[in-house]
């Protein structure tokens, strides 16, 4: 099965540039099913968390207004090749995704 997280990392000196793409519908909760007319319930990522060697480097809090299949990029200092980057998300109905990769 395809992982719901894709990450691209780039090290320049001790700065790690992180780009991430998440597979998620990000339903707003105000959209109607075109066939049945019923409201599609909200289903969206609430938190996206990055840790590097166990240290939290980013907590992103999302509303339903982050685009479908969310993209998020940021950078942090104090990184070196071989560090373990952990990326995880949780959504409003308790589904989760996680990915671990080493910086290079």
């Amino acid at each position, binding site marked *: 099965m*395809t992982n719901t997280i*894709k990450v691209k990392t780039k090290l320049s000196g001790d700065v790690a540039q992180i780009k991430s793409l998440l597979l998620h519908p990000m339903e707003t909760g105000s959209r109607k099913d075109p066939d049945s007319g019923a409201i599609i319930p909200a289903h969206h990522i609430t938190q996206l968390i990055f840790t590097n060697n166990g240290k939290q480097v980013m907590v992103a809090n999302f509303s339903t207004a982050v*685009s479908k299949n969310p993209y998020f990029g940021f950078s942090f200092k104090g990184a070196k090749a071989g560090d373990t980057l952990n990326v995880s998300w949780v959504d409003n109905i308790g589904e989760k995704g996680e990915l671990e990769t080493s910086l290079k």
Partner: protein
Amino acid sequence: MIRAITIGLIILFASMVFQSAYAGPPEDRRAFIAYFESRFPAIPFAEYANGIYAIDQDARDQWLEIEEFPPYEFAVEQGASLWQERFPDGKSYSDCFKNSKNGVRQNYPEFDTRTGEVVTLAKAINLCRNKHGQNTLEFGGEKILALSAFIAFESRGEPFNINVPNDDVRALAAYEEGKRFYYTKRGQLNLSCADCHVVSVGQYVRADHLSASLGHPTHFPVYRSKFGSMLSLHQRFAGCVRDVRAKPFELQSTEYRALEYFLTYMSNGLEVNGPGARK
């Protein structure tokens, strides 16, 4: 003397008639490219592969942001794993697509001189499956789009090289059918493909700029932000036909395959840059 001039004129006239009556695919393509070059002298030929982003800077900037990490990468990944699957007879897709090391996207649609049919990449995928005892995938469905995305990705940078064999009248007939479709006005709005994408290219339709036809097929399939999913070239055709308020044809119908054949031939020489990302 007069006789010589007369004969000369007759020959000249006859050759002009001959030329216009028998303008073949290569002449069509040269004229097509020349048209866009005269409309947009500043745009290099290779840029047409980028579609609307060749001519709309603000949109281009946003597209480049999306390309930083394009959502079609999920489809490419899914396609890669489908590509590696073994059929029960031990074969896989690479057995059907012979020169797949250099990509194959650039060769489709292909005219099959055995069956007399235009074979698009989607058709070829299903023919391969059927040959190895597998079911036909739904055109425009997730799996065939993922495979198409992966194949396009592996073919990136290869110039399109569509062949209209001149020793097969059926091939030329298919090409001509596509050309006729392209220039025929249809629907309640009475518009042809060419009305928007040749005659009015670069102008606004409400808030959208009309893209150039040259390069239209190079980047498919595309991830459409509007739908949040992948879209095939034929689904895009159907969208355009619906937009002029005509009844769309079936995906992979004879009509759309002929249109793709003509349109991709026009884009010969441009590089495969699919899958793409579009608004």
